[in-house]
């Protein structure tokens, strides 16, 4: 492995930025799936978040409002999914796929007037002396606020699922909705809330892409990030911290392979290009295999709930 001219601190800082959209989308989807709903519309919600966030930021001149708009856009789109799957009991897989197609088309329509427009810049947090520390300063203290928020989101989801009553209820609904219903929990209401949270998170991830990472609007800007997020939830066996790890692995190897190429590495490019996918899957599979529980998926995942049964 030649580290020819690659600065590890800069690399780690880059991977943290590169992984943010996937972290948001994946942690949102994790909550949705924990409640027993499989929403394959992540890509669609992300891209709607990307364009709504972009449009709001451009119109108001405020990136902060842009992120709020992105979350709202993603949540609004997920509401369609919630209505179809929870109220009208449509098939979740088909609805999710349709949601992605719809999101891609709708974002393109909304985005017609925003092609080639520059969004207002989002500043980095100025942490003064912390940012100036060699090494650590670069890695930890020179990001925009969304990078910290993405890690915080993972921590909060982990804590809520593990230590709170509402987290327990959410998991119960996902494991056995009939039992949860028999205990008097509102299965549909809980699932709709989870779907909305997932939508808002996917929207935030999308807005990060269009406002900070790329920063511009182009059709198809998410380019499959939503599908990566979905895969990471599965390979992380529906656990929050492994989701973060999976996203960092994927983002990190993506950034690393590009840096290796730029530095003129001797490793063939094809191997470098496929490495993010391979290594992420491998590591997460090995981690999952380590546990004695084989079936980590919520038992009611993807099943339609009807109260009269």
């Amino acid at each position: 492995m030649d580290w020819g001219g690659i600065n590890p601190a800069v690399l780690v800082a880059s991977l943290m930025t590169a992984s943010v959209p996937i972290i948001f989308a994946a942690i949102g989807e994790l909550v949705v799936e924990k409640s027993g709903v499989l929403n394959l519309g992540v890509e669609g919600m992300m891209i709607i978040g990307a364009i709504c966030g972009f449009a709001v930021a451009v119109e108001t001149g405020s990136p902060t409002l842009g992120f709020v708009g992105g979350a709202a856009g993603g949540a609004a789109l997920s509401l369609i999914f919630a209505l179809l799957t929870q109220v009208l009991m449509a098939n979740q897989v088909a609805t999710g796929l349709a949601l992605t197609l719809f999101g891609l088309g709708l974002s393109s329509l909304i985005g017609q007037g925003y092609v080639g427009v520059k969004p207002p810049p989002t500043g980095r947090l100025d942490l003064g002396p912390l940012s100036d520390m060699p090494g650590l300063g670069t890695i930890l203290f020179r990001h925009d606020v969304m990078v910290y928020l993405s890690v915080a989101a993972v921590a909060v989801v982990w804590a809520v699922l593990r230590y709170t009553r509402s987290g327990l209820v959410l998991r119960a609904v996902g494991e056995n909705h009939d039992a949860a219903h028999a205990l008097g929990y509102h299965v549909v209401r809980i699932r709709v809330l989870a779907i909305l949270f997932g939508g808002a998170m996917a929207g935030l991830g999308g807005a990060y892409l269009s406002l900070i990472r790329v920063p511009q609007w182009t059709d198809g800007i998410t380019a499959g990030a939503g599908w990566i997020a979905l895969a990471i939830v599965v390979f992380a066996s529906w656990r929050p911290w492994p989701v973060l790890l999976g996203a960092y692995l994927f983002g990190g190897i993506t950034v690393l392979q590009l840096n290796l190429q730029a530095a003129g590495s001797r490793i063939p490019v094809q191997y470098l290009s496929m490495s993010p996918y391979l290594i992420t899957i491998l590591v997460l599979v090995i981690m999952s295999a380590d546990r004695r529980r084989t079936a980590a998926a919520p038992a009611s995942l993807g099943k339609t709930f009807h109260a009269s049964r």
Partner: protein
Amino acid sequence: MDRRTLLAGAASGLALSLAGRAALAQAKDKVKVGFVYVGPIGDGGWTFQHNEGRLAVEKEFGDRVETVYQESVPEGSDAERVLTQMALGGCDIIFTTSFGYMDATNNVAAKFPNVKFEHCTGFKREHPNVSTYNARFYEGRAVCGTIAGMMTKSNKIGYIGSYPIPEVVMGINAAYIHAKKVNPDVTISVVWAYTWFDPAKEADAAKALIEQGVDVILAHTDSTAPLAEAAKTPGVIGFGQASDMAAYAPSPRVSSIIDNWAPYYVKRVGMLLDGTWQSTDAWEGIAGGEVKIGEITEAVPAEVKAKAMEVHDAIAAGTYHPFTGPLNKQDGSAWLAEGQTAPDSDLLGMNFYVEGIQGEIPK
């Protein structure tokens, strides 16, 4: 329709196709024109320009044409399905606007001998109803390379490649040769994105190059993301690719290579209407107007601009070919002797770097 007429119709259709069609081109009153795009028309680059060409066709012929298009068609079997649908949908001519549609175009053309197919940037014309067309983008790269070589302070220029195909390798070589001419110390780093259009990935590639000390970025991908990334770092410049990308002027976008497809599209659809369409292989450049150099901004010093325009004007006048010897291949073996210019066949199959470029072309 009852079964008998259906069978009779099928039989006569079969008989007709077996009889072999008389090669009589006929003028048409109205034609339907299809376009297959690899990215979205809002990409601000490659596909955007092809769509501008489509709009020019509509404007030119008005009621005599109907155009249809499909965006973001993956290169592969999906393309074949889309092409088949377009042909069944009554298109008289279909433009397939990406290298990766080459085989799909020829396969579908075999099934629809009455439909004309025009494939962009490819080299296979297996049937009389297939044409290929391309632009000499490397001429534009020569101009941008000249600017890059003179503008770089770190003596490192970066290039975001899409796929390792001849067209892209040609561009890398042309940029490097001309950067080196004006700056002997220049080195070029190439990052392969393995995509034509993925703004996030293109931004990451640009970022990686900048982290490696590159201060001029050329891109052979379709979005404006590399310029947006360059804008984040003061002192880094880049070029508009396929479209002018003037939103990023005067800096980081200091100039651009503009693909101008409109004249070609208008000409070919016109020929179809007149009944004079024939299978051809078109490859025009700056002189033919298919490649344009966007305005060189005030971020570039006057002498650099003058030098770049000198290259541009010489190419336009036909007095200079960007690949003029003496040039060696990367491994040091001779390619072009003193004063010799590269034959088109060498360029269209280009699978080697010229001498001085580090790194390997992925096989």
